[in-house]
């Protein structure tokens, strides 16, 4: 199986953005993730699929060191971003997270105005020199998140007053306002209705032009619709990783096939 993955990698057209080798994650005594090797490509949407508790969210949270906030969590192996080890002692997770943004499962806008939600990242990272520039960043981010037309007249209304789908797009705008290089999305549509889901999926496809997007999803249709590459996790193992089309049409591992056809879950 390893051989197959190696040949696949050789075929990759894009450049590698994030490279994970031999990643192990432990929660206390529980071995949550075993020996994961993944290359995440630049300007590509990568989907992580798998049944609940398979470790896909855990792995996603390793990529911007959000697992650091969980005291019992321990990560082994190497993960590099543009060739730099993100778990090196010299790396400040705060700087890393400015480069690797994250959107969560449940929309979690700050209980502040729409403008302040988007402006928060640029403000704390000192990305803009004056109000006009900040206004520009806010507008651009909201436009990219396909939210600008809906909120441009009420930028100072509370972000928590928006609908669920709008809130999630606001969170995406907030994440891209810091100009990250990678955007991690942890089941971004699980709390949304089908219309809002479609909007967010369309948005993810557009974001591919500028970012490398990694999305964890429970919906295989969604993975098939938005991603170019898919990784299938099962019981803490990375079972199969490859082109989305190949994973869904000709999976090489029987477990992948069972999951995709709905026999295990």
């Amino acid at each position, binding site marked *: 199986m390893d051989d197959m993955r190696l040949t696949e990698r050789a075929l990759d057209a894009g450049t590698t953005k994030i490279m994970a080798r031999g990643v192990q994650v432990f929660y206390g005594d529980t071995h949550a993730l075993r020996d994961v090797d993944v290359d995440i490509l630049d300007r590509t949407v990568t989907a992580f699929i798998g049944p609940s508790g398979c470790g896909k969210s855990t792995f996603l949270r390793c990529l911007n060191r959000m697992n650091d906030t969980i005291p019992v969590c321990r990560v082994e192996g190497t993960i590099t971003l543009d060739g730099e080890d993100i778990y090196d002692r010299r790396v400040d997770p*705060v700087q890393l997270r400015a480069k690797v943004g994250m959107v*969560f499962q449940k929309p*979690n806008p700050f209980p502040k105005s729409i403008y302040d939600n988007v402006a*928060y990242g640029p403000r*704390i990272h000192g990305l803009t020199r004056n109000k006009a520039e900040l206004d520009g960043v806010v507008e651009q981010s909201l436009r990219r998140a396909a939210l600008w037309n809906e909120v441009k007249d009420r930028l100072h209304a509370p972000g*928590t007053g928006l609908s669920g789908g709008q809130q999630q797009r606001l969170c995406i705008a*907030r994440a891209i306002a810091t100009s990250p290089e990678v955007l991690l999305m942890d089941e971004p549509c699980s709390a949304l209705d089908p219309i809002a889901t479609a909007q967010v999926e369309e948005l993810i496809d557009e974001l591919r032009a500028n970012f490398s997007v990694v999305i964890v999803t429970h919906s295989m249709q969604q993975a098939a619709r938005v991603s170019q590459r898919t990784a299938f996790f099962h019981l803490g193992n990375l079972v199969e990783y490859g082109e989305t089309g190949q994973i869904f049409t000709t999976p090489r591992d029987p477990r992948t096939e069972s999951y995709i056809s709905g026999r295990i879950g």
Partner: protein
Amino acid sequence: MTDASAIRPGIRASLMTPDTRTRRRNAAEARFRLYGRIAIAIGLAALVVLMGSVLANGLGSFRQSFLTLEVHLDEKVLDKSGARDPEAMKKVTTIGYGKIVDAALKATIAAEGIVVEGLTDKDVSDMISKEAAALVRNRVLADPALVGQTVAFKVLANGRIDGYLKGRVTMDSAERDSNVSPRQLELADALVARGILAKSFNAGFITGPDASELRPEAAGMGIAILGSAYMMLVVLFLSLPIGVAASIYLEEFAPKNRFTDLIEVNISNLAAVPSIVFGILGLAIFINFAHLPQSAPVVGGLVLTLMTLPTVIISTRAALRAVPPSIRDAALGIGASKMQAIFHHVLPLAAPGILTGMIIGLAQALGETAPLLLIGMVAFVRDYPGGLFDPATALPVQVYNWTQRADPAFVERASGAIIVLMVFLLAMNMAAIVLRRRFERRW
């Protein structure tokens, strides 16, 4: 498929008639509701009785009997040299002024043509509070030009006469009382009829200093209010920053290990330590070891801070824990540092809870008596404290003090002070509610 009726036979009864099981469950619920109502009724009744008795006893203290007298400030008595030199005039004590006031009342009685059988000079002079001479003396020393003139003064009547006007002293009780005679009460009736003796609002009760056992009519709680206010300032400015900083550290930064567990358990235990223990601690540390002055609001404030801290820490931690973790994740996910996430997002959301806890802690500290007794705030203080290091007393201690005194007039004073204390507590709780409403946000 299993047959449902096989499991529960006889369940096919009509919906219109409840079965015994349902009836029993409903009856149990009705009983439970009744118990709840009874408990609340008992609580409310106790509250009404308490408030009623405090108000009935204490409201009188806000109104006091005053005599309006035309006092002739005789130059021969008050300033023999005639130089109007305040230093020389200070040699005349309140005894000299007392005679002048007595003379003024006697003159008034004569002028009004009041005749009371067997009335002695002592009876007349005892109508007036001992405080009256001091009042007149202070006015004259402040303005020596008044000497030689006849000036109208509103002076306090004696506590027993005040009690008679308020119904506490009657002709019967006066017969048996060595401090007041029925003749004086007759005279009081006559003076009331002529408008010379009347009750009016007594600002001195709220602003004035305490008075000795012999003149309850002059006792006030100004120093106690000031002392309590100083202490609350100390408590606010120490326990809020210390408590909030400690809570943030413990809740957000501290590693979870045996040592922090121990600290947590101890903080919870400290909240349950009897307050008098804090008083002993304050006596040992602040007065005997640090040599801070006794009876000073700064020491009282420090002791109450120690006592309030556990309350503040516990409520602040609860408020911090109540902020949803998604807000923290959101901030960290954008690349905020832990401290930025806390100060920009978590703390503003926790603020209403923290403020409420702080105000509840302050209210608790305001009503605390036992530790203050130990650090000497029970002392009799006549001079207004100029700062945190001057002797003062505190409201609840003043209440305690007054209830210890023999004269029944002090019962009224104590209840009046309780009313003031409760007004402050009520105001603080209202402030807590208003702040919580104002800052409450949804997420």
